[in-house]
Each structure stands twice: as C-alpha cells, then as structure tokens.
C-alpha cells in the first residue's frame, strides 16, 4: 500500500505556530521600542510603571468590549460601523434611568433612584434591538453590512441627540456608577472575552460563525440556518456595544450624545491588528485581545513620549492601514506560497 492516509487516534499535531504568536511578537517588539525610547528621551522606564500600564488597560478595555463583538462580525464576513453610535444611544438611555432623586432636574422625575438593574437592562435592550435590526437587514434583505450598519450609525447617533435635545445627563446612583469604577471595566472586559473565547472555540455558535465566514453557501447546504445566525451575531455585537456604552457613561458619571464617536473604528482596528481577516472566516478572540493591548501600548507610548495628540491621531491612522496591509499580505502569501 502506497497511500499515506490519516492516522486514526493520533492527536492532531500542530506543525505551524498559531498566528497569535506572531502578533504577540509584534506586541513585545513595540513595547521594547517604547522602553528603549523611554530611557533615551525621558530617562525612565515605560514598562516598569505599573500605574501607567493599568491606566492603559483601563483605557482600552471599554473599546475592547466592543471589539469582542466586532471580531465575531468580521469573522462572519461582515462589518459593524454602528457600535460607536450605539454607545452614545445606550449611554443616554441608561443614564436617564439611573439618576438620583436628589437631583431636581432629572429626565424622568418619577423614575429616580431605580435599582441598577433597570438602567442596565434598558441600556442592553437598546443595543440588542439596534444589533438585531442590523442583522435582520443584512440577513434577509441582503443589503451589504457596510450600508446597513452605516445607516444604523447615523440613526442611532441621531436618536442619542434627539433624546435630550443635546443636553447631557448626569448624577447617577452610586450603584450605577460602580459599574465604571476602578478596575471594574477591565473585569467586565475579561469576563466578556472569556465567554466569547469559549463560545467561538468550543460551541456550535462559534463553528457556525467561522463556517459562514469561510463560505456562506456551503454553510447553508450543510444545514446551517445562515440567516438566523447572522442576526444572532449582529445582535451580540449590538449588545456588547451597549455594555460598553453603559460602562463608559457609568465611569464618566455623565452621558452625552457624542459619546463613543469613532469607537467603531478603534474596535475594528483592534480586531484587524489582532489578525482577524476582513475577508472573513479567520481570527480569534485571543488575537483581538493582543491587538487591543498593542493599540493601548501605542497610544500610551506616544503620550509617554509626550507626542502631540494630533500626531497621535495621524499615527493611529497609519497603524490601522498598516494592519490591513499586513492582512492582505498574509492572504497573498496564502495564495502564492513560496
């Protein structure tokens, strides 16, 4: 017999290193660059400052929560531009239901000092509904995700502005404010990341997501209800954007209609830096988490080097494009090999 067949019962050997290792190397590289530049220009260590690191993690974890949802949308072969606006809309709604009774200009004077569960649920519902609308539009009317979520982005932002005619909403109860206090956002992020890491890796939910992203037609023929799953994923993305919105507003103790502007792009950038392919079918939560930290290190590194905020924005743009270039390059290599 000459044919080499698969050996039953042997475990699956991993010949190639997982892609996350490469991204981790990038993270290490960038951190070291800042460390060295730090010693040269500032005369101090970048990494050896736990306070700086914890602030950095705190800064990125809110958008990180969004990125977990966005990662799944991108793996599915879609895109979500509405998450930043959902943050804004959620912030307004939840804060308006979380105000203290001692504040005499509350939005709903009869609805103050409510238990924290009320603004929480109300906020999450906003995201769930917006996400579901996105999903239904994309799955059943077959309009491109870019357009559907662009529409939601504009509409949700409009809603946030209309809600109080542009007035900020403030004075939350202590229990609501606790959702954003201290390191709570980081813990919420970690919990969300853990849940969806497991879901993508070990459950049918995850397998369907990758399958649809890789080949929606084959997924359908294999018995997957593709439309329903698309709705599910966009709904989850909306839900996570809402959760992020609640955390931001709780932390800021105030809600404004402009909250979360551009968050969607930062979240997409984190995913793409973390190796999630815009072509669909590829990417992991772990990758996005590393992408998120890279993102944070760069921002906090620039601040540390006292780089002007304007430069920071420009360089952020460059980094996002570079990450996509890397993705395209990876795919080319895949086609060409050798």
């Amino acid at each position: 017999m000459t044919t080499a067949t698969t050996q039953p019962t042997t475990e699956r050997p991993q010949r190639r290193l997982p892609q996350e290792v490469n991204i981790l190397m990038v993270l290490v590289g960038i951190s070291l660059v800042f460390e060295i530049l730090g010693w040269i220009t500032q005369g101090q260590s970048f990494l050896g400052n736990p306070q700086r690191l914890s602030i950095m993690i705190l800064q990125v974890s809110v958008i990180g929560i969004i990125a977990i949802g966005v990662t799944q949308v991108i793996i599915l072969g879609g895109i979500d531009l509405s998450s930043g606006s959902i943050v804004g809309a959620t912030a307004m709604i939840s804060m308006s239901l979380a105000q203290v009774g001692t504040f005499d200009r509350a939005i709903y004077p009869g609805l103050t000092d409510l238990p924290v569960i009320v603004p929480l649920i109300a906020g999450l519902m906003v995201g769930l509904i917006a996400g579901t609308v996105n999903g239904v539009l994309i799955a059943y009317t077959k309009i491109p995700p870019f357009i559907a979520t662009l529409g939601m982005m504009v509409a949700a932002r409009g809603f946030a502005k209309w809600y109080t005619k542009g007035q900020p909403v403030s004075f939350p109860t202590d229990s609501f404010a606790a959702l954003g206090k201290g390191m709570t956002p980081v813990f919420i992020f970690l919990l969300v990341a853990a849940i969806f890491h497991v879901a993508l890796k070990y459950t049918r939910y995850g397998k369907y997501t990758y399958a649809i992203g890789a080949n929606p037609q084959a997924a359908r023929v294999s018995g997957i209800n593709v439309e329903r799953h698309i709705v599910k994923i966009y709904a989850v993305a909306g839900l996570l954007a809402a959760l992020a919105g609640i955390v931001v507003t709780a932390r800021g103790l105030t809600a404004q209609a402009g909250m979360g502007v551009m968050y969607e792009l930062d979240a997409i950038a984190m995913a793409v830096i973390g190796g999630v392919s815009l072509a669909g079918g590829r990417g992991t939560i772990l990758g996005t988490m590393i992408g998120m930290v890279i993102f944070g290190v760069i921002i906090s590194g620039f601040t540390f080097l006292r780089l002007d905020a304007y430069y920071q924005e420009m360089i952020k743009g460059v980094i996002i494009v570079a990450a996509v270039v890397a993705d395209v390059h990876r795919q080319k290599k895949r086609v060409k090999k050798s």
Partner: protein
Amino acid sequence: MVSASTAAAVDRVKQRIDAEGILAIRGIRKEFPGVLALDDVQLKVRPGTVHALMGENGAGKSTLMKIIAGIYQPDAGEITLRGKPVTLKSPLDALEQGISMIHQELALMNWMTVAENIWIRREPKNVFGLIDHGKMARQTQELFDRLNIRLDPLAMVSELTVAQKQMVEIAKAVSHNSDVLIMDEPTSAITENEVAHLFTIIRDLRARGVGIVYITHKMSELFEIADEFTVFRDGKYVGTHSALDVTRDDIIRMMVGRDITDMFPKIDCPIGEVVLEARNLTIPGVFHDVSFQLRKGEILGLAGLVGSKRSNVAEALFGVHPASSGEVLIDGTPVQITSPKVAMEHGMAFLTEDRKETGCFLILDCLENIQTALITRDHVRFGFIDQKAVTKLAEDMAAKLRVKTPNLAEKVENLSGGNQQKLLIARWLLTKPRILILDEPTRGIDVGAKSEIHRLITGLASEGVAVLMISSELPEVLGMSDRIMVMHEGHVAGFLNRDEADQVKIMDLAAR
C-alpha cells in the same frame, strides 16, 4: 528567402525540440510544510502530442502543473521550453512565454461577462484607449465560432452552469495561442457531448503543433485522446509510455501499485418501500413536471446532458432552491422542504456538484470541514460540541476514505482536488442519512478510491439507504444504478431498468 545559415539554425532548434520536447522537465522537487509533493520528477512533452499525466489523488500532478504555469516555484530542478532553460516567475510570465493552463478548480470571475473573463488584461481598446466592448464581444464570438461553442459572450459568468464555465475556461486558454496547453481535469464537470466537443478542439490544437498536457482520472479518455502518458505515484516519477503499448490494467497498476479488480462492486439487495417521492416538481423555466419514486435500498441513477437540469432537481429536493410547485413525499407523507436544514431533519444528505462554491470551506481545516453537517444535529450538548467524539468519527471516516493529508488540522485549500472531494463525502456519510443525494460523487477521484467509494455507496444501499446519484460518467451510472432516470432539458425523458440499460439507450433518451 531565408539564408542557409538561418535555415540551419532553425533546423537545429527543430531537432533539439524533437529530442527534448517542446517542454522538458527534469529533477523537479517541491516541498510543502509536512508534504514532499514532488520528488525528482520528470516530464517531456513533444509538440503536436497529447501527453496524459496520471496518478492517484495527491500524487502531485496539479502541483507540477502549477509549477509549469508559474504559480509555484520549484525547490529544485529545471524546466526547458523550446530547447532553452527557463524560469517561470509568475503566471503572467508563463503565459507570455507560451504556456497556458486550465485549472482543476474553475477560476473565473463570477460578476463579469464571459467576454470580459476571456480577454481580461488583453481587452481590445478603441481610439481613446478605452475598452472597446463591441469588439471584445465580436472577438469572443469569433473564438466561439472557431471552437463551435454556443454561448452568449455577454452572459454573466455567475449565471452559467459548471459545464458552461468549463467551456469558457477552455476557450480562454485556447485564445492565448500558446505552444503548451495544460488541462487539469477538464472533463470532470462536463458530460459526454461536451467531452466529445472538447476532444475535437484538442485534436485541432494537436494538429497545429501545440503540446498538450492532459490530466484525468477517466481511463477511457486516456486511450481516446492521449498519445503518451506519464505516471506519478506519491510525488515520484514512475514512467512514461506510449498509449498504444499498454492496457488499462497496466496503467492502474503503475498508478496505485496494485490491481483493482472490480470498478463497480454492486451488491444486490432487496429493494423496499418508497421513501422519497417527487410529484410534478416544477420551477418555471428550469424544470417541469419532474416525478419519480425512490425506494429503500435503491440506487437511482440520474443521467442527462449538460443543461438537462439534473442538479437543479437535486437542489430543489434538498431545499437549496425549493421547487415552486409540485409535491415531495417522504415515507408517503407530504413534506415542505424549504431549506437544507429541513431536508436534513428528514434524514437527507446532499453532496453538491461544485465543491469550491457550495462544498468546501477552503480556509478552514479538514476536521472543521468534515464535522460541519454532523454538528448541526448530533454530538452537541448545551451548544458545546463533544469534540473528542466528533474528532474520532471524523478521523475514522477520513481513514476509511483514504484521505491523503498530513493530519486533519491541515487547511483544506492545501489538499489535492480529489482529497477535497473525499472530505465532502465524509461530511455527509457521518450524518448517517436515509436518503442520500449525490451529484457527481466521484468527480476528480482516482481509480482506486473510486472503486472504494462505489463499494461504500452500494454498501449503504444494501443497509437500506435510498440513493439518488447524478453522474455524467455513463459507466458509473450503468455500473451502479438499479434504475436510471434520464432527463432532457428540464423534463424526465424516461426510466431504464438495470437490465435493459446501455449507453446507447441513455444517450437516445438524453438527446432525444
């Protein structure tokens, strides 16, 4: 008038080409991570001949062809073209040097017209330097006239059937007027009529002095069209012979290293009650009034020419594109099959015709590809997959079908075409269907594995599975079916029983 010295030079080149072949390959080696795909192989193609390249699935045929077409770079070895050593840096480079290729997996752009696909990068321009669409359509029509292809140059590729796409690929490759033309399984998706048509085209090209490399798993074609053939086994060169000197069995022995006694090991088994019945299924403009019964333990062959809409009927049964009128009954009860998911709930499985479009998840690994259908129903608790059990099942099935891959974590895009097909068969067999619909089940599968898969199908039938098998290979239809349904342009042309059926009767019904 050419001078004597020029004539002598031309003569020398001619002699060298005669001795060396128009294309000669020596000592080629190509390694992929974990696989030595080609190990010191050689091939010599002479002008004006058809050179068949034979070997099992994963033997390295496509890999060598991709090297010749400039897609892969070899790790070692040399290529000479028209007597001169060359390096082929890219597909474009190879094309410009006179080598064109028809790929095993179709590679047309779906959202462009036939004409745009054929002339891409060579579009005729008007005086303003813009693309002259009228001229492009005319050029296409001329090409089609020359090749006797009947297709609208302005049709969208996405609207074509697999077979029509294949004809477009062929026309595109011919349009380059290359000296060397590579055809990697060009007939795996087309029926006898188109095959005959293709062979006319090939003979014409051969007469013009083109050197043709032809890969196929259909033995009969080898003797019909090939002048010489070369066999590879497991990435190694086995030998080159003239097609006149050998028998079918010799070649099979060279390919698989053993004899294959029975290509169609049909098991006779009792045929039970009707499991699936179709009554007047219709999609206006596609197929009309399709009615048939499929019984427990029966293999119903479905034959017909390209355009007979056999695949559309299968898709309708499985709910991919449900019929707009008519009835489907399972076990005598009318059912509404609105999606593949519903079909699977009724115990159906459907191996589709086009493995790239509707079959494989190319960027995912083998295991994910095998388990997709299974995990929509079994081995899942609270959404969590019992991965250990599923992996075991997948591994056993892959071993049974002799899928050639270093391991199941390999990405499917890295597998050879035939092995991808085996994975898809594994996917459906794992769901333990009661009704199995197979559309070209052995497409691109080598002789050895083919007889293996036939054994499996007839084994399933003897266990009571009802099988509907579409196949464009008449020997397969004849060898495997209990009954044969023949379709003609969207209508059922007739049924033939196993004992009365032969090629002529089928073709009579199919062509009317």
